[in-house]
């Protein structure tokens, strides 16, 4: 069990260090029989719940476990009440679990029936089944506790759980369930995956949708029920929802997500129950939830695929690419009239000597000054522009790049006008949205559509009037002749 030691990182350090070393090693080496049972049982449960949970999450039924675990209550009570009439022991775990399973399945069937036969939505179906079944369960338990044989002993543990006092029998139940769950889910992995992502496609390929749905729900029911009596209602809901939701932040690959979710569930349970073994006065169920909730919070921010920070960076990167495009094109369009006047319009040397006041470029965009100057600095750093006091000019590479950007923009504008019938005064905005996504092959296609050739050094003329800052239009002289003090009016 050396792997257990790695979970120490998740533990509240000061408290752990305050403990005696032998307490410490006793817990982490699982020397106590009770600790061993609790830790192993909850870990297996977390594993199974994490696996099933990732399927229900993708099927947009995250709270199914919530509704189901409430819906088991009447079954438990009825099993307790009716078992003696069939000569069974009302307090035996097998009888109670079968009762729970039956009423859980009836609850599942009701959810499906309400959703398919009425105009009510999924959430209402879950809420109705949850509250009505639980209400019924309270009524039945209210009767059950009037029976002479004990105070309906142990029935309430189905609701609040008894994580710290899991016994070996529960452990075996959990182990068996986890085994079944893993077997079912890996056997039908492909079919269930299809069910989660594209129900219509699955049914068109001849997969039995209803059958698969029932199989998945039945797996949820089994895991929920076995877990319910071991760890209680709220922890069971948490185990079904949190690891799956957390692992979704890390990957878009279903196999990886499922495995990660199982690992997270198992890891949280192990860490939580170990901590509670060290701090016996804290409820282990609650600790497990808190550990997995921290894992969720961590994933939400740092998840590789859909985490907040990853999404932020991706958006920023995209924004920067677009900003560069817009500025370079703006610069090119500012210089364009001067190119037309110069004797050798495309000679690189002349173009790179034309200086533009920075403020004129800023005037082409309604950007905050910070965003503008940041991009200008980046352009300078990458060698696309040169700057001197208050003025900038394109470098040779910058000129090529600016020309390419302008060309792509105008190609798309022309395409919109000639082939999509968009009015000329509206194409500028539309083209700005798409131009970054144009790949070389698309550009090539546009060129052949519009009879433009790549070898033609001239750019297509902008199909709409380019709004230049008034200063430039007034002084149509090459900007390079302006002196430093020629700041825009």
């Amino acid at each position, binding site marked *: 069990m050396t792997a257990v030691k790695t979970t120490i990182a998740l533990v509240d350090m000061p408290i752990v260090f305050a403990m005696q070393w032998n307490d410490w090693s006793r817990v982490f080496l699982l020397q106590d029989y009770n600790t061993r049972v609790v830790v192993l049982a909850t870990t297996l449960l977390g594993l199974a719940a994490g696996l099933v949970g990732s399927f229900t999450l993708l099927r947009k039924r995250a709270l199914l476990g919530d509704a189901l675990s409430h819906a088991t209550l009447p079954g438990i009570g009825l099993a307790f009440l009716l078992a003696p009439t069939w000569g069974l022991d009302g307090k035996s775990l097998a009888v109670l679990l079968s009762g729970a399973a039956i009423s859980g399945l009836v609850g599942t069937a009701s959810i499906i029936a309400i959703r398919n036969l009425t105009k009510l939505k999924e959430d*209402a179906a879950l809420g109705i089944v949850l*509250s009505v079944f639980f209400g019924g369960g309270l009524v039945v338990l209210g009767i059950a506790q009037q029976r002479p044989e004990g105070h309906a002993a142990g029935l309430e543990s189905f609701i609040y759980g008894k994580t710290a006092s899991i016994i070996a029998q529960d452990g075996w139940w959990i182990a068996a369930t986890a085994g079944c769950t893993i077997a079912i889910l890996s056997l039908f992995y492909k079919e269930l995956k299809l069910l989660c992502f594209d129900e219509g496609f699955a049914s068109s390929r001849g997969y039995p949708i209803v059958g698969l749905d029932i199989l998945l729900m039945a797996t949820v029911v089994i895991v929920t029920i076995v877990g319910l009596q071991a760890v209680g209602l709220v922890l069971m809901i948490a185990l079904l929802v949190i690891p799956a939701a957390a692992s979704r932040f890390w990957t878009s690959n279903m196999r990886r997500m499922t495995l990660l979710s199982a690992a997270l569930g198992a890891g949280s349970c192990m860490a939580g129950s170990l901590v509670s073994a060290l701090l016996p006065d804290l409820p282990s169920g609650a600790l497990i939830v808190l550990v997995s909730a921290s894992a969720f919070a961590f994933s939400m921010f740092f998840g590789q695929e859909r985490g907040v920070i990853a999404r932020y960076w991706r958006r920023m990167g995209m924004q920067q690419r677009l900003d560069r495009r817009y500025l370079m094109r703006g610069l090119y369009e500012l210089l364009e009239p001067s190119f037309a006047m110069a004797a050798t319009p495309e000679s690189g040397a002349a173009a790179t000597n034309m200086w533009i006041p920075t403020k004129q470029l800023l005037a082409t965009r309604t950007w905050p000054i910070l965003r503008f100057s940041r991009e200008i600095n980046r352009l300078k750093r990458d060698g696309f522009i040169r700057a001197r006091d208050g003025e900038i000019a394109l470098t040779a590479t910058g000129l090529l790049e600016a020309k390419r950007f302008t060309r792509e923009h105008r190609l798309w504008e022309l395409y919109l006008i000639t082939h999509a019938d968009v009015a000329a005064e509206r194409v500028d905005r539309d083209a700005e949205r798409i131009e970054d996504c144009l790949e070389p092959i698309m550009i090539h296609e546009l060129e052949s559509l519009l009879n433009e050739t790549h070898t033609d050094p001239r750019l297509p003329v902008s199909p709409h009037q380019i709004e230049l800052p008034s200063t430039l239009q007034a002084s149509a002289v090459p900007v390079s002749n302006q002196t430093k003090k020629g700041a825009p009016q």
Partner: protein
Amino acid sequence: MNLFIEPIIADAMPAGWLWELDGWIIAAGVLCAVASSLLGNFLVLRRMSMLGDAVSHAVLPGLAAAFLITGSRHSLPMFLGAAIVGVLTALLTQWVRGFGKVDEGASMGVVFTTLFALGLVMIVRAADSVDLDPGCVLYGAIEFTPLDTLDVLGFDIPRVVVILSVVTLVNLLFVVLLFKELKLASFDPALADSMGIHSNWIHYSLMTLVAITAVASFESVGNILVVAMFVVPASTALMLTDRLPVMIVISAAVAVLSAVIGHWAAITIPNWFGYASSSTAGMMALTTGVLFALAVIFSPKNGLLIMFSRRFQLELGILGDDVLAYLYRLEEKGTAEAITDRQIREELLGSRFAISMVMWWYKLTNQLQGDHTGYRLTDAGRTSAASLVRSHRLWEQYLVDQAGVASDRIHGQAERLEHFTDRKFRDELDRQTSFPSSDPHGSPIPAEQSTEQSIESQKPI
């Protein structure tokens, strides 16, 4: 919530009905039910039905914090703490959903289980010295209602009833005064915003009231009742009507009914099996469930019964048409002997029951004669059959002539259309296809026989 009725209730509630006790219990139940169901309409419409459940689990840390801060179990700080955390649950769910792009159900699940666990830890920390049991102390039971009274204007009124009356009144005012805004914000938030209604504010005040109602209710009557009343009466009402004001009134009525019946049933029904009374709150929740099931089955608009009977009626009508047309075609081919039940069943694949219904109807309206050993068309029957066959063949002609459908594919389509074609329609088809005398298969098109406008009235049932 309190699962087990305390012995004191067994003493307080003998076999007989005591109005001074049961009356107050029912009053508390009715108030809680109405207060929740008023808001519940909007939760169901906004697909947030599970919020009541989430809040009821999530308030634990609020209660614990209030206890830790004030050191007492006085109800006001507890109430405030719980209400704050209740609102926080709604806000956090919203935040996780928007900020982390997690789906609604999952974000709710993450938020409320985490808050519950946090509360549990806080309570265990706090309860070392004091008796603070999450199962019993924090959640009231409706059966205790009459025990804790306040003096209001010289009357002894249970505290619970006073609190719930205030909550009900506030919710009622909210729904009535902001009806237009709530309606717009629920159905079309964008339109509401464009009209200057802040749909976000409406949303957050709704969430706040939901949290307060939930907390006030399960502090006094137990949480399952409020969770049920948020969802079930509104869903029941939605099965019965499509109009929001009507829906709200119906949901309140359902709430009142289930509270009254629920309490009665909790006392009476266990008696039938030789037990003492059971959980009133549970029974009230169960009763709404029964009312909901009744609405699903018997709703005059969307009920299963009406849906199935409409479908069956249509099936019978079409089967009846097919029987007449079948007999007509056989006559046309010159088949001399009468047709038996069995032949019809084999030809038209109808169930024995449906066919006998149809035959009974046609004999009653004198369109068929004979019995199950052999049927023949009467003159009246022949007239309606001729109209049907005329519709069928005119359609075939039209499909080939005007719609350019290949002639081997027209029969199925004409078979479907013939049942919904009346006199006016036939005349138009006739005109469009330039008054043909035979269909594309060469069968003669019978002359128009119907004297009235529609053949619909001759369909069975």
